[in-house]
C-alpha cells in the first residue's frame, strides 16, 4: 500500500512538472499538453508493469534474473530495448541526415557486435553464470579477488555509460519539450529507481520490451510514410534523395571550396559516398574493435543472459535481438535520408548540432508540419519513445552496477557468501538506490560537460578489460587469477588513460580559436598554391603527436584569394543599423529573424569563451591531444589480452587448473546450470 502511494505521488509529480517547463524546445507551447499526455500514458504503462512485476519479485534470483523465466523471444526484444540507446536511435538517424553514407556505415558495427555475443559469450555465460560477470570469473579464479576487480570494472563501465545517458537524456528532453535539465535528470532517475527497486529484473525487462516495441512501431510507420511515395523502390527513393536541393546544399557546405566545380547531380550523389564525416580510417578500425568486442563485455548486456531458462533460450534471444537491432538500423537509413530530404540539414542542425533532432523533426513533418495537430502528435510520440528509451537503458545499467555492488562485493566478499536470502535481496535494493542516487547527482553535476567521450570509453573499457577476462576464462585452460587481475587493470587503465589525452577532451585553445572565429569573423586570405600530399613518417605518428612526426595528409588543391568574413559581433551591428532604416513590415520581420539567428550563434560562442576563460590546457594539462585517435581500442584491447596471457603464463594457480574440466564441460553442455525458479 505504501509502495502504491509513493508511485502515485511520483506520477502526479511528473505530470505536474509540465508547469515547470521553461519555454522553448522543439514542441510549440500550445501543443505541449499533448506531449505530456503521451508521456503520461507511457509512464502509466510502465508503472502498471512495475506493480505487476513487484508481486513476484522476492528472491535474489527473481530480483537479479527475473526468476530465469524470460523466454528467448522476450529476452531478444529486451536486449534490443537495452541496447538501442537514445544515442543510437536518435544519433545515427541524425548522422545519416547530416552526412549521408558515413552515418549509415557507422551503424553497421553496432549490429556486427552481436556476432561475438552470439558465438562466444551468450550460451557459455548462461551455463556458467549466476547473476553477474564476477560469478563467471570467480568460477575458476580466486573468488574474492576476481569479484572485487570484476565489480570495480562493472561499476566503472556502467557509470561511464550511465553518465552519458543521463546527460544526453537531460539535454534531449530539454531540446524536445523544454523541461529544465535538472528536472529531467531527477525525473528519469526516480522513474528508473522505481522500476528497479520494486520490480527488479522483471520490471526492467518488460519496460525494455515495451520501449523496443514502441520504437520499432514508430520507425516502421515513419519509414513507410517516407518510402511509400516511391513505390518502395530503393533506387527511385535514393534518386529523389540525391536530386533534392537541400541535400545538395548540405554536401556543398560540407565540402566547402572543393565543391566549386561540381554539378548539383554530383553533389547529391556525393551524399551516398563515403568520406563526408569519418575521415580517419585508423580511428574507425579502433572504434570497430571496441564495438565488436566491447558489446560482449558490457555488464548490462551479459546480465540479460542470466534471465532465460536455458542456453538454447539465450541463443534464441541473441538471434531475435540481431533481427530487431539490424532491422532498426536499416530503417535509420530511410529515417536519416528522409529527414535530410524533407526537413533539411540546415533546420536539423539549427536545433541540435549533432543532428539528434532529425528523427523527431521528420515525424513532425510527416504528421503535417509544425502547426498541425497530427504533426505535433507524431512529434510527441517520438519524444515519448526517446524518453522511454533513456529510462529503459538507464534501468538496465543501474541493475548491472547494483548487482556488482550487492552480489559481488557485499555478499561475495564482505559476507563471504554467508548472507541469508532475505539479506541478499535487501542488499540488492539498497545498492540500487545508492547507484540510482549517484547517477542523479553525477548527471546534474555533469550538466553542460562534454560527455561524448564517455560512451567510447565505456565500450573501450568493456572491450579491453571485461572481454579478455571473460573470454580467456571460458576458453583458455591456462588462464588464472593473476592474469585476469593484471589484464583487467591494465586494459581498463590504458583505455581510460588514452581517452584522457585524446581529442575527445576539451582543449581550451581550440575552443577559444573556434569561438573567436565566430565572433570576429575571418580575415581576408591571399591565394594559396596547391600543396602536395604529405606522407606519414610512420604508423606510430598516426597514433601519437610526437616530436618530429608528420601525419599523412592528402594533397590540397590551389585556393583562390578569399575576402574577409564578418563575425557575429559585426553582423549584429550591421543588422541593427539596417533594421532602424527599414520601414516595410515584412522586410523588418525577415531582418529580425536573421538577427535572432546571428544572436544565438553569438551567444553560444560567448558562452564557450566564458567556459574556458583563462585556461590554456585540458584537465590533463595538454594544449592539444597527444593521442590522436578518439577510440583507444586499437591499443588497449590487444594490451588487455596480452596482460591476461602473460600473467597466466608466469604464475601457477592450482584452483584455476583444477576447475578447468568442470568449467569447460559445463559451459558446453549446461550440466548443473542454474535452474529457472518454479512458481
Amino acid at each position: 500500500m505504501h509502495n502504491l502511494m509513493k508511485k502515485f505521488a511520483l506520477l502526479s509529480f511528473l505530470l505536474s512538472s509540465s508547469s515547470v517547463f521553461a519555454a522553448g524546445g522543439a514542441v510549440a507551447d500550445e501543443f505541449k499538453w499533448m506531449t505530456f499526455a503521451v508521456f503520461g500514458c507511457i509512464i502509466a504503462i510502465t508503472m502498471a508493469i512495475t506493480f505487476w512485476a513487484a508481486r513476484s519479485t522476492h528472491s535474489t534470483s527473481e530480483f537479479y534474473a527475473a526468476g530465469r523465466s524470460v523466454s528467448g523471444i522476450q529476452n531478444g526484444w529486451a536486449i534490443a530495448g537495452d541496447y538501442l540507446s537514445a544515442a543510437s536511435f536518435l544519433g545515427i538517424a541524425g548522422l545519416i541526415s547530416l552526412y549521408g553514407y558515413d552515418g549509415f556505415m557507422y551503424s553497421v558495427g553496432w549490429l556486427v557486435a552481436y556476432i561475438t555475443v552470439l558465438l562466444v559469450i551468450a550460451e557459455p555465460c548462461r551455463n556458467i553464470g549466476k547473476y553477474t560477470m564476477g560469478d563467471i570469473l570467480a568460477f575458476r579464479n580466486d573468488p574474492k579477488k576476481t569479484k572485487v576487480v570484476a565489480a570495480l570494472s562493472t561499476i566503472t563501465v556502467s557509470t561511464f555509460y550511465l553518465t552519458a545517458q543521463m546527460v544526453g537524456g537531460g539535454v534531449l528532453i530539454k531540446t524536445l519539450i523544454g523541461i529544465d535539465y535538472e528536472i529531467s535528470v531527477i525525473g528519469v532517475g526516480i522513474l528508473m529507481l522505481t522500476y528497479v527497486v520494486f520490480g527488479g529484473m522483471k520490471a526492467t525487462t518488460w519496460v525494455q520490451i515495451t520501449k523496443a516495441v514502441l520504437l520499432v512501431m514508430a520507425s516502421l510507420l515513419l519509414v513507410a510514410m517516407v518510402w511509400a511515395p516511391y513505390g518502395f523502390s530503393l533506387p527511385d527513393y535514393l534518386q529523389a534523395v540525391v536530386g533534392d536541393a537541400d541535400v545538395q546544399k548540405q554536401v556543398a557546405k560540407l565540402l566547402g571550396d572543393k565543391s566549386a566545380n561540381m554539378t548539383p547531380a554530383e553533389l547529391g550523389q556525393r551524399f551516398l559516398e563515403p568520406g563526408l564525416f569519418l575521415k580517419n580510417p585508423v580511428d574507425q578500425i579502433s572504434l570497430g574493435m571496441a564495438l565488436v568486442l566491447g558489446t560482449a563485455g558490457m555488464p548490462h548486456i551479459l546480465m540479460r543472459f542470466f534471465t532465460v531458462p536455458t542456453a538454447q533460450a539465450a541463443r534464441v534471444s541473441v538471434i531475435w535481438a540481431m533481427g530487431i537491432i539490424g532491422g532498426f538500423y536499416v530503417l535509420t537509413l530511410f529515417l536519416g535520408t528522409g529527414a535530410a530530404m524533407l526537413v533539411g540539414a540546415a533546420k536539423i542542425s539549427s536545433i541540435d548540432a549533432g543532428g539528434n533532432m532529425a528523427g523527431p523533426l521528420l515525424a513532425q513533418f510527416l504528421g503535417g508540419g509544425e502547426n498541425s495537430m497530427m504533426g505535433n502528435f507524431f512529434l510527441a510520440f517520438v519524444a515519448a519513445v526517446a524518453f522511454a528509451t533513456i529510462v529503459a537503458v538507464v534501468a538496465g545499467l543501474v541493475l548491472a552496477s547494483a548487482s556488482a555492488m550487492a552480489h559481488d562485493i557485499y555478499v561475495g566478499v564482505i559476507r563471504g557468501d554467508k548472507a541469508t536470502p532475505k539479506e541478499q535481496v535487501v542488499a540488492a535494493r539498497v545498492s540500487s538506490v545508492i547507484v540510482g542516487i549517484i547517477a542523479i547527482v553525477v548527471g546534474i553535476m555533469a550538466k553542460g560537460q562534454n560527455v561524448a567521450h564517455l560512451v567510447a570509453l565505456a565500450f573501450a573499457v568493456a572491450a579491453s578489460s571485461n572481454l579478455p577476462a571473460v573470454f580467456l576464462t571460458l576458453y583458455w585452460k591456462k588462464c588464472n587469477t593473476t592474469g585476469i587481475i593484471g589484464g583487467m587493470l591494465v586494459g581498463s587503465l590504458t583505455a581510460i588513460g588514452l581517452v584522457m589525452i585524446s581529442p575527445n577532451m576539451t582543449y581550451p585553445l581550440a575552443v577559444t580559436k573556434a569561438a573567436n572565429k565566430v565572433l570576429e569573423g575571418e580575415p581576408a586570405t591571399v591565394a594559396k598554391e596547391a600543396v602536395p600530399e604529405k606522407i606519414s613518417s610512420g604508423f606510430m605518428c598516426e597514433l601519437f603527436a610526437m616530436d618530429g612526426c608528420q601525419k599523412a595528409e592528402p594533397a590540397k588543391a590551389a585556393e583562390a584569394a578569399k575576402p574577409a568574413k564578418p563575425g557575429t559581433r559585426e553582423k549584429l551591428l550591421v543588422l541593427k543599423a539596417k533594421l532602424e532604416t527599414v520601414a516595410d513590415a515584412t522586410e523588418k520581420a525577415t531582418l529580425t529573424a536573421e538577427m535572432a539567428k546571428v544572436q544565438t550563434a553569438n551567444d553560444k560562442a560567448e558562452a564557450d569563451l566564458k567556459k574556458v576563460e583563462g585556461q590554456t590546457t585540458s584537465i590533463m594539462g595538454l594544449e592539444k591531444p597527444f593521442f590522436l585517435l578518439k577510440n583507444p581500442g586499437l591499443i588497449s584491447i590487444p594490451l588487455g589480452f596480452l596482460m591476461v596471457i602473460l600473467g597466466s603464463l608466469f604464475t601457477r594457480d592450482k584452483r584455476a587448473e583444477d576447475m578447468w574440466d568442470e568449467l569447460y564441460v559445463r559451459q558446453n553442455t549446461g550440466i548443473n546450470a542454474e535452474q529457472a525458479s518454479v512458481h
Partner: protein
Amino acid sequence: MSKTNDINWAAIDADPRFQALHRKKTLFLWGLMIFSTIYYFLLPIGAAYFQDLFKVKVWGVVNVGILFALSEFVVAWGIAVWYSIKANGQFDAMAQAIINDQK
C-alpha cells in the same frame, strides 16, 4: 544441487563424444568469427582506401558502397541463422547424449 560433487568432470572431458563436440564447435565458431571479423573490417577499409570502387553506380543511383554496407547486415543475419541451424541440429544433440549419461 549437491550433484556437483558426484560428477567426474575429467571423465566427461576425456569422453570421445565430448572431444568430438569440442572439436566440431571450436572449428565452426572460430571459422565464423574470423570470417565475420574480416568481412566487417572490409567496410571501413574499403570506404577509406577503395573509394573509387565504392562510388561505382550499379542500380540507379545505388552504388557499390551502399550495397556493401547493406550486405554487412545480410551477412550478420546469415551467420546468426547458420549458427543456430548448426547448434540446434548438431551441437545440442551431441551435448544431450553426454548429459543423458549423467542422469
